[in-house]
Protein backbone atom coordinates (compact mmCIF):
# COMPACT_ATOMS: atom_id res chain seq x y z
CA UNK A 1 0.00 0.00 0.00
CA UNK A 2 1.23 3.47 -0.86
CA UNK A 3 0.05 6.53 1.02
CA UNK A 4 -0.11 10.21 0.33
CA UNK A 5 -1.08 12.32 3.33
CA UNK A 6 -1.88 16.00 3.21
CA UNK A 7 -3.16 18.70 5.53
CA UNK A 8 -5.23 21.43 3.95
CA UNK A 9 -6.22 24.73 5.55
CA UNK A 10 -9.91 25.69 5.72
CA UNK A 11 -9.34 27.58 2.47
CA UNK A 12 -7.68 24.58 0.80
CA UNK A 13 -4.10 25.78 1.07
CA UNK A 14 -1.77 22.79 1.45
CA UNK A 15 0.01 23.02 4.79
CA UNK A 16 1.86 19.76 4.79
CA UNK A 17 2.23 16.65 2.68
CA UNK A 18 4.14 13.44 2.71
CA UNK A 19 4.24 10.21 0.75
CA UNK A 20 5.09 6.87 2.30
CA UNK A 21 4.50 3.18 1.91
CA UNK A 22 3.20 0.63 4.31
CA UNK A 23 5.45 -0.74 7.00
CA UNK A 24 3.03 -3.57 7.80
CA UNK A 25 3.38 -7.12 6.49
CA UNK A 26 7.03 -6.66 5.69
CA UNK A 27 6.57 -3.38 3.84
CA UNK A 28 9.64 -1.17 3.61
CA UNK A 29 7.82 2.14 4.16
CA UNK A 30 8.53 3.39 0.67
CA UNK A 31 5.75 4.70 -1.55
CA UNK A 32 5.35 2.98 -4.90
CA UNK A 33 2.55 4.68 -6.74
CA UNK A 34 1.06 3.33 -9.94
CA UNK A 35 2.17 6.29 -11.96
CA UNK A 36 5.55 7.09 -10.50
CA UNK A 37 6.31 9.83 -12.98
CA UNK A 38 3.22 11.82 -12.21
CA UNK A 39 2.36 10.54 -8.75
CA UNK A 40 2.89 13.84 -7.00
CA UNK A 41 0.61 15.67 -9.33
CA UNK A 42 -1.94 12.88 -9.56
CA UNK A 43 -2.19 12.48 -5.81
CA UNK A 44 -2.77 16.17 -5.26
CA UNK A 45 -5.29 16.21 -8.06
CA UNK A 46 -7.20 13.24 -6.66
CA UNK A 47 -7.21 14.61 -3.15
CA UNK A 48 -8.44 17.99 -4.27
CA UNK A 49 -11.20 16.43 -6.33
CA UNK A 50 -12.51 14.74 -3.22
CA UNK A 51 -13.00 18.04 -1.42
CA UNK A 52 -16.57 18.47 -2.59
CA UNK A 53 -17.44 15.19 -0.94
CA UNK A 54 -15.64 16.26 2.21
CA UNK A 55 -17.51 19.54 2.30
CA UNK A 56 -20.81 17.79 1.94
CA UNK A 57 -20.06 15.18 4.55
CA UNK A 58 -18.66 17.80 6.90
CA UNK A 59 -22.12 19.18 7.66
CA UNK A 60 -24.01 15.91 7.82
CA UNK A 61 -21.62 14.11 10.10
CA UNK A 62 -20.13 15.74 13.18
CA UNK A 63 -17.40 13.19 13.65
CA UNK A 64 -13.86 14.38 13.33
CA UNK A 65 -12.91 11.17 11.58
CA UNK A 66 -15.08 10.74 8.50
CA UNK A 67 -13.46 7.44 7.49
CA UNK A 68 -13.23 6.52 3.82
CA UNK A 69 -15.11 9.21 1.92
CA UNK A 70 -14.18 8.95 -1.72
CA UNK A 71 -12.67 6.67 -4.32
CA UNK A 72 -10.97 7.47 -7.56
CA UNK A 73 -11.25 4.29 -9.62
CA UNK A 74 -8.83 5.17 -12.45
CA UNK A 75 -5.99 5.13 -9.98
CA UNK A 76 -7.57 2.77 -7.45
CA UNK A 77 -7.10 5.56 -4.97
CA UNK A 78 -9.06 5.68 -1.76
CA UNK A 79 -9.43 8.85 0.31
CA UNK A 80 -9.99 9.02 4.06
CA UNK A 81 -10.67 12.27 5.86
CA UNK A 82 -10.29 13.71 9.33
CA UNK A 83 -11.55 17.20 10.12
CA UNK A 84 -10.14 19.29 12.93
CA UNK A 85 -12.71 21.42 14.74
CA UNK A 86 -10.86 24.53 13.57
CA UNK A 87 -11.44 23.63 9.94
CA UNK A 88 -8.20 22.00 8.78
CA UNK A 89 -8.65 18.77 6.83
CA UNK A 90 -6.37 15.78 7.05
CA UNK A 91 -6.66 13.70 3.90
CA UNK A 92 -5.07 10.35 3.34
CA UNK A 93 -4.91 8.79 -0.08
CA UNK A 94 -4.20 5.09 -0.14
CA UNK A 95 -3.41 3.05 -3.14
CA UNK A 96 -3.11 -0.74 -3.02
CA UNK A 97 0.00 -2.17 -4.67
CA UNK A 98 -1.68 -3.94 -7.60
CA UNK A 99 -4.70 -3.18 -9.62
CA UNK A 100 -7.27 -5.17 -7.72
CA UNK A 101 -9.92 -7.19 -9.47
CA UNK A 102 -12.46 -4.87 -10.99
CA UNK A 103 -14.92 -5.13 -8.11
CA UNK A 104 -12.93 -2.80 -5.88
CA UNK A 105 -13.42 0.46 -7.65
CA UNK A 106 -16.58 -0.43 -9.48
CA UNK A 107 -19.03 1.49 -7.38
CA UNK A 108 -16.80 4.43 -6.71
CA UNK A 109 -16.85 7.64 -8.58
CA UNK A 110 -15.70 11.19 -8.30
CA UNK A 111 -19.23 12.14 -7.33
CA UNK A 112 -18.63 10.40 -4.07
CA UNK A 113 -20.69 7.31 -3.58
CA UNK A 114 -19.49 5.81 -0.37
CA UNK A 115 -17.80 2.48 -0.31
CA UNK A 116 -17.93 1.91 3.40
CA UNK A 117 -16.98 -1.66 4.06
CA UNK A 118 -17.92 -2.65 0.55
CA UNK A 119 -15.77 -5.71 0.82
CA UNK A 120 -14.59 -5.18 -2.69
CA UNK A 121 -10.96 -5.28 -1.84
CA UNK A 122 -8.27 -7.25 -3.46
CA UNK A 123 -8.46 -10.95 -3.00
CA UNK A 124 -4.72 -11.30 -3.24
CA UNK A 125 -3.91 -10.58 0.38
CA UNK A 126 -5.57 -11.63 3.59
CA UNK A 127 -8.67 -9.59 4.36
CA UNK A 128 -7.59 -8.50 7.80
CA UNK A 129 -4.33 -6.95 6.75
CA UNK A 130 -4.32 -3.18 6.61
CA UNK A 131 -2.51 -3.29 3.33
CA UNK A 132 -5.08 -5.53 1.76
CA UNK A 133 -8.33 -3.70 1.84
CA UNK A 134 -8.67 0.07 1.99
CA UNK A 135 -12.27 -0.06 3.20
CA UNK A 136 -12.19 -2.84 5.77
CA UNK A 137 -13.03 -2.02 9.41
CA UNK A 138 -9.42 -2.86 10.30
CA UNK A 139 -8.15 -0.29 7.86
CA UNK A 140 -10.66 2.30 9.05
CA UNK A 141 -9.45 1.75 12.58
CA UNK A 142 -5.77 1.90 11.65
CA UNK A 143 -6.35 5.12 9.75
CA UNK A 144 -8.26 6.53 12.72
CA UNK A 145 -5.30 5.81 14.97
CA UNK A 146 -2.96 7.40 12.48
CA UNK A 147 -5.12 10.52 12.13
CA UNK A 148 -5.52 10.84 15.88
CA UNK A 149 -1.79 10.70 16.41
CA UNK A 150 -1.19 13.28 13.70
CA UNK A 151 -3.88 15.46 15.25
CA UNK A 152 -2.10 15.44 18.58
CA UNK A 153 1.05 16.72 16.91
CA UNK A 154 -0.93 19.18 14.85
CA UNK A 155 -2.43 20.66 18.01
CA UNK A 156 1.07 21.06 19.41
CA UNK A 157 2.02 22.93 16.27
CA UNK A 158 -0.91 25.32 16.31
CA UNK A 159 -0.60 26.03 20.04
CA UNK A 160 2.58 27.99 19.44
CA UNK A 161 1.82 31.72 19.50
CA UNK A 162 3.84 32.15 16.31
CA UNK A 163 1.73 29.74 14.35
CA UNK A 164 -0.96 31.46 12.31
CA UNK A 165 -3.82 29.70 10.62
CA UNK A 166 -2.87 28.76 7.08
CA UNK A 167 0.88 28.66 7.72
CA UNK A 168 2.75 25.79 6.17
CA UNK A 169 4.08 23.31 8.72
CA UNK A 170 7.80 23.07 8.09
CA UNK A 171 9.05 21.48 11.28
CA UNK A 172 11.18 18.44 10.64
CA UNK A 173 10.15 17.14 14.05
CA UNK A 174 6.51 17.26 12.96
CA UNK A 175 7.41 15.43 9.76
CA UNK A 176 9.24 12.83 11.81
CA UNK A 177 6.18 12.36 14.02
CA UNK A 178 3.88 11.86 11.05
CA UNK A 179 6.35 9.38 9.56
CA UNK A 180 6.46 7.51 12.85
CA UNK A 181 2.66 7.44 13.09
CA UNK A 182 2.53 6.05 9.57
CA UNK A 183 5.01 3.36 10.44
CA UNK A 184 3.15 2.50 13.62
CA UNK A 185 -0.39 2.26 12.26
CA UNK A 186 -0.26 1.88 8.51
Amino acid at each position, binding site marked *: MSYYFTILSPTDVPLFNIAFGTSKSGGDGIARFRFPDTAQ*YMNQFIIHSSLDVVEEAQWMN*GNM*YLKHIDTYPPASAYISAFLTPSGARFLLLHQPPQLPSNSAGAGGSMSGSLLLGSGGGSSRASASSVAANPTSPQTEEAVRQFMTEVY*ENYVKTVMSPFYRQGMEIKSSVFRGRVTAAGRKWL
Partner: protein
Amino acid sequence: MTQPARHAAMLSISNGGPNAVAVDKQQSQHIHTQSQSSQGLRVPSNRKTIYDRHLNRSRSAELSRASFAFLFAEMVTYAQRRVTGIQDLERRLNEQGYPLGLRLLDLLYYRTMASSTSSSLSSSSTSAAPPNRPLRILPLLHLIHGPLWRLLFNRPADALEHSVSPETPNEYMITDNDPLVNTYISVPKEMSMLNCAAFVAGIIEGVCDGCGFEAKVTAHNQPTEMWPGRTIFLLRFGESVMEREKVLERAGVK
Protein backbone atom coordinates in the same frame (compact mmCIF):
# COMPACT_ATOMS: atom_id res chain seq x y z
CA MET B 1 -14.78 27.49 -3.19
CA THR B 2 -14.43 27.13 -6.90
CA GLN B 3 -12.48 24.50 -8.75
CA PRO B 4 -9.93 26.89 -10.27
CA ALA B 5 -9.08 28.28 -6.85
CA ARG B 6 -8.44 24.80 -5.63
CA HIS B 7 -6.15 23.95 -8.45
CA ALA B 8 -4.30 27.17 -7.94
CA ALA B 9 -3.83 26.31 -4.30
CA MET B 10 -2.89 22.80 -5.15
CA LEU B 11 -0.02 23.92 -7.29
CA SER B 12 1.33 26.43 -4.86
CA ILE B 13 3.54 23.89 -3.20
CA SER B 14 6.12 22.58 -5.54
CA ASN B 15 7.42 19.26 -4.52
CA GLY B 16 10.93 18.22 -5.15
CA GLY B 17 11.09 16.30 -8.37
CA PRO B 18 8.32 14.69 -10.37
CA ASN B 19 9.40 11.23 -9.36
CA ALA B 20 7.67 10.01 -6.25
CA VAL B 21 9.78 6.88 -6.04
CA ALA B 22 12.61 9.15 -5.04
CA VAL B 23 10.67 9.96 -1.90
CA ASP B 24 12.80 7.77 0.31
CA LYS B 25 15.85 9.83 -0.52
CA GLN B 26 14.19 13.04 0.45
CA GLN B 27 11.93 11.81 3.15
CA SER B 28 13.07 14.27 5.77
CA GLN B 29 12.89 17.44 3.74
CA HIS B 30 10.74 16.91 0.77
CA ILE B 31 8.56 19.95 0.72
CA HIS B 32 10.59 22.70 -0.82
CA THR B 33 8.97 25.98 -0.20
CA GLN B 34 9.05 29.43 -1.55
CA SER B 35 11.33 30.51 1.27
CA GLN B 36 14.54 28.59 1.26
CA SER B 37 15.68 30.06 4.57
CA SER B 38 14.66 27.06 6.60
CA GLN B 39 17.58 25.18 8.04
CA GLY B 40 15.18 24.05 10.72
CA LEU B 41 15.19 25.15 14.32
CA ARG B 42 17.93 24.29 16.75
CA VAL B 43 16.86 22.13 19.67
CA PRO B 44 18.50 21.61 23.06
CA SER B 45 20.78 18.60 23.41
CA ASN B 46 18.05 16.75 25.31
CA ARG B 47 16.11 17.32 22.06
CA LYS B 48 13.06 18.59 23.90
CA THR B 49 10.68 20.35 21.54
CA ILE B 50 7.05 21.37 21.71
CA TYR B 51 6.31 17.91 20.32
CA ASP B 52 7.80 16.26 23.39
CA ARG B 53 5.62 18.11 25.82
CA HIS B 54 2.35 16.46 26.71
CA LEU B 55 -0.60 18.66 25.84
CA ASN B 56 -2.19 17.98 29.18
CA ARG B 57 0.82 18.90 31.22
CA SER B 58 -0.46 22.32 32.23
CA ARG B 59 -4.10 21.31 32.13
CA SER B 60 -4.78 21.89 35.79
CA ALA B 61 -1.80 24.13 36.53
CA GLU B 62 -2.46 27.47 38.15
CA LEU B 63 -0.73 30.81 38.15
CA SER B 64 -1.28 34.00 40.01
CA ARG B 65 -4.29 36.03 39.02
CA ALA B 66 -2.19 39.15 39.52
CA SER B 67 0.26 37.95 36.86
CA PHE B 68 -2.56 37.63 34.41
CA ALA B 69 -3.90 41.06 35.33
CA PHE B 70 -0.50 42.69 34.91
CA LEU B 71 0.07 41.09 31.53
CA PHE B 72 -3.40 41.83 30.30
CA ALA B 73 -3.15 45.46 31.42
CA GLU B 74 0.12 45.79 29.49
CA MET B 75 -1.52 44.28 26.47
CA VAL B 76 -4.32 46.84 26.64
CA THR B 77 -1.93 49.74 27.28
CA TYR B 78 0.22 48.70 24.38
CA ALA B 79 -2.77 48.32 22.08
CA GLN B 80 -3.97 51.75 23.14
CA ARG B 81 -0.78 53.39 21.88
CA ARG B 82 -1.50 52.25 18.38
CA VAL B 83 -5.16 53.07 17.99
CA THR B 84 -7.33 56.07 17.30
CA GLY B 85 -10.30 55.49 19.57
CA ILE B 86 -12.28 53.11 21.68
CA GLN B 87 -13.75 51.23 18.76
CA ASP B 88 -10.36 50.83 17.21
CA LEU B 89 -8.95 49.61 20.51
CA GLU B 90 -11.72 47.08 20.92
CA ARG B 91 -11.18 45.90 17.37
CA ARG B 92 -7.51 45.38 18.08
CA LEU B 93 -8.18 43.45 21.28
CA ASN B 94 -10.69 41.37 19.37
CA GLU B 95 -8.08 40.59 16.73
CA GLN B 96 -5.63 39.48 19.37
CA GLY B 97 -8.16 37.13 20.89
CA TYR B 98 -9.18 35.60 17.58
CA PRO B 99 -6.18 33.30 16.95
CA LEU B 100 -6.41 32.19 20.57
CA GLY B 101 -9.95 31.00 19.89
CA LEU B 102 -8.72 28.82 17.04
CA ARG B 103 -5.99 27.34 19.23
CA LEU B 104 -8.22 26.71 22.20
CA LEU B 105 -10.74 24.98 19.99
CA ASP B 106 -8.19 22.40 18.88
CA LEU B 107 -6.82 22.02 22.39
CA LEU B 108 -10.30 21.53 23.78
CA TYR B 109 -11.11 18.77 21.30
CA TYR B 110 -7.80 17.09 21.74
CA ARG B 111 -8.40 16.91 25.47
CA THR B 112 -11.93 15.64 25.17
CA MET B 113 -10.76 13.06 22.69
CA ALA B 114 -7.83 12.01 24.81
CA SER B 115 -10.02 11.47 27.82
CA SER B 116 -12.76 9.64 25.94
CA THR B 117 -10.34 7.23 24.32
CA SER B 118 -7.68 7.02 26.97
CA SER B 119 -7.91 3.26 27.13
CA SER B 120 -7.70 2.82 23.39
CA LEU B 121 -3.95 2.85 23.27
CA SER B 122 -3.80 -0.64 24.64
CA SER B 123 -6.96 -2.15 23.26
CA SER B 124 -7.57 -2.41 19.56
CA SER B 125 -10.76 -0.43 19.49
CA THR B 126 -12.78 1.75 21.75
CA SER B 127 -16.43 2.20 22.41
CA ALA B 128 -16.21 5.69 23.86
CA ALA B 129 -17.25 8.19 21.21
CA PRO B 130 -14.91 11.03 20.47
CA PRO B 131 -16.51 14.48 20.62
CA ASN B 132 -18.46 15.75 17.66
CA ARG B 133 -17.79 18.96 15.82
CA PRO B 134 -20.76 21.32 16.25
CA LEU B 135 -22.93 21.38 13.13
CA ARG B 136 -25.68 23.61 14.45
CA ILE B 137 -25.61 26.90 16.33
CA LEU B 138 -26.91 25.53 19.61
CA PRO B 139 -24.20 22.94 20.22
CA LEU B 140 -21.64 25.54 19.24
CA LEU B 141 -23.02 27.95 21.85
CA HIS B 142 -23.00 25.24 24.48
CA LEU B 143 -19.39 24.51 23.64
CA ILE B 144 -18.52 28.16 24.27
CA HIS B 145 -20.70 28.61 27.33
CA GLY B 146 -19.42 25.42 28.96
CA PRO B 147 -16.11 23.81 27.96
CA LEU B 148 -14.45 26.93 26.55
CA TRP B 149 -15.35 29.05 29.57
CA ARG B 150 -14.20 26.32 31.92
CA LEU B 151 -10.90 25.98 30.13
CA LEU B 152 -10.27 29.70 30.37
CA PHE B 153 -11.92 30.72 33.60
CA ASN B 154 -12.56 27.48 35.51
CA ARG B 155 -16.32 27.96 35.46
CA PRO B 156 -19.10 28.10 32.87
CA ALA B 157 -20.50 31.41 31.63
CA ASP B 158 -23.52 32.73 33.49
CA ALA B 159 -26.20 32.82 30.81
CA LEU B 160 -26.95 31.97 27.24
CA GLU B 161 -29.85 33.61 25.43
CA HIS B 162 -31.34 33.97 21.98
CA SER B 163 -32.53 37.33 20.72
CA VAL B 164 -36.27 37.71 21.24
CA SER B 165 -36.62 40.15 18.39
CA PRO B 166 -37.97 38.58 15.19
CA GLU B 167 -35.73 40.95 13.22
CA THR B 168 -32.56 39.49 14.63
CA PRO B 169 -32.88 35.73 14.81
CA ASN B 170 -29.13 35.55 14.15
CA GLU B 171 -28.25 37.19 17.48
CA TYR B 172 -27.28 35.28 20.60
CA MET B 173 -25.99 36.49 23.92
CA ILE B 174 -23.59 34.96 26.38
CA THR B 175 -23.35 36.66 29.75
CA ASP B 176 -20.49 36.76 32.18
CA ASN B 177 -21.44 38.46 35.45
CA ASP B 178 -17.89 39.10 36.51
CA PRO B 179 -15.38 38.73 33.68
CA LEU B 180 -11.87 38.02 34.86
CA VAL B 181 -10.43 40.35 32.24
CA ASN B 182 -12.20 43.31 33.78
CA THR B 183 -11.52 42.65 37.46
CA TYR B 184 -8.18 44.39 37.59
CA ILE B 185 -8.54 46.79 34.71
CA SER B 186 -9.56 50.27 35.72
CA VAL B 187 -10.83 52.10 32.69
CA PRO B 188 -10.34 55.89 32.66
CA LYS B 189 -13.60 57.85 32.86
CA GLU B 190 -13.35 59.23 29.34
CA MET B 191 -13.26 55.65 28.11
CA SER B 192 -16.21 54.37 30.10
CA MET B 193 -17.61 52.71 26.99
CA LEU B 194 -14.54 50.54 26.63
CA ASN B 195 -14.88 46.91 27.50
CA CYS B 196 -11.61 45.02 27.51
CA ALA B 197 -13.59 41.83 27.27
CA ALA B 198 -13.35 42.59 23.56
CA PHE B 199 -10.36 40.29 23.86
CA VAL B 200 -12.63 37.46 25.00
CA ALA B 201 -15.10 38.41 22.26
CA GLY B 202 -12.25 37.82 19.82
CA ILE B 203 -11.61 34.41 21.33
CA ILE B 204 -15.28 33.53 20.87
CA GLU B 205 -15.20 34.80 17.32
CA GLY B 206 -12.20 32.58 16.62
CA VAL B 207 -14.04 29.56 17.98
CA CYS B 208 -17.13 30.31 15.87
CA ASP B 209 -15.17 30.94 12.69
CA GLY B 210 -12.98 27.92 13.26
CA CYS B 211 -16.06 25.71 13.48
CA GLY B 212 -17.37 27.22 10.25
CA PHE B 213 -19.87 29.62 11.82
CA GLU B 214 -18.92 33.02 10.51
CA ALA B 215 -19.85 35.53 13.21
CA LYS B 216 -19.16 38.95 14.62
CA VAL B 217 -18.79 39.01 18.38
CA THR B 218 -18.75 42.12 20.54
CA ALA B 219 -18.58 42.76 24.29
CA HIS B 220 -20.94 45.17 26.01
CA ASN B 221 -21.12 46.55 29.54
CA GLN B 222 -24.43 45.68 31.18
CA PRO B 223 -23.83 46.42 34.86
CA THR B 224 -26.36 45.54 37.51
CA GLU B 225 -26.29 46.58 41.12
CA MET B 226 -24.97 43.21 42.12
CA TRP B 227 -22.59 42.79 39.16
CA PRO B 228 -20.95 46.08 38.21
CA GLY B 229 -18.70 44.36 35.67
CA ARG B 230 -21.42 42.29 34.01
CA THR B 231 -20.67 41.84 30.34
CA ILE B 232 -22.80 40.58 27.49
CA PHE B 233 -21.12 38.98 24.53
CA LEU B 234 -23.28 39.54 21.50
CA LEU B 235 -22.84 36.96 18.75
CA ARG B 236 -24.20 37.84 15.33
CA PHE B 237 -24.04 35.00 12.88
CA GLY B 238 -23.68 35.66 9.17
CA GLU B 239 -26.43 35.06 6.66
CA SER B 240 -24.78 31.99 5.17
CA VAL B 241 -24.73 30.41 8.61
CA MET B 242 -28.44 31.10 9.11
CA GLU B 243 -29.24 29.63 5.72
CA ARG B 244 -27.24 26.50 6.36
CA GLU B 245 -28.95 26.27 9.73
CA LYS B 246 -32.33 26.03 7.97
CA VAL B 247 -31.09 23.42 5.52
CA LEU B 248 -29.60 21.30 8.28
CA GLU B 249 -32.76 21.59 10.35
CA ARG B 250 -34.81 20.27 7.46
CA ALA B 251 -32.30 17.47 6.99
CA GLY B 252 -32.72 16.55 10.63
CA VAL B 253 -29.12 17.28 11.56
CA LYS B 254 -28.77 18.12 15.23
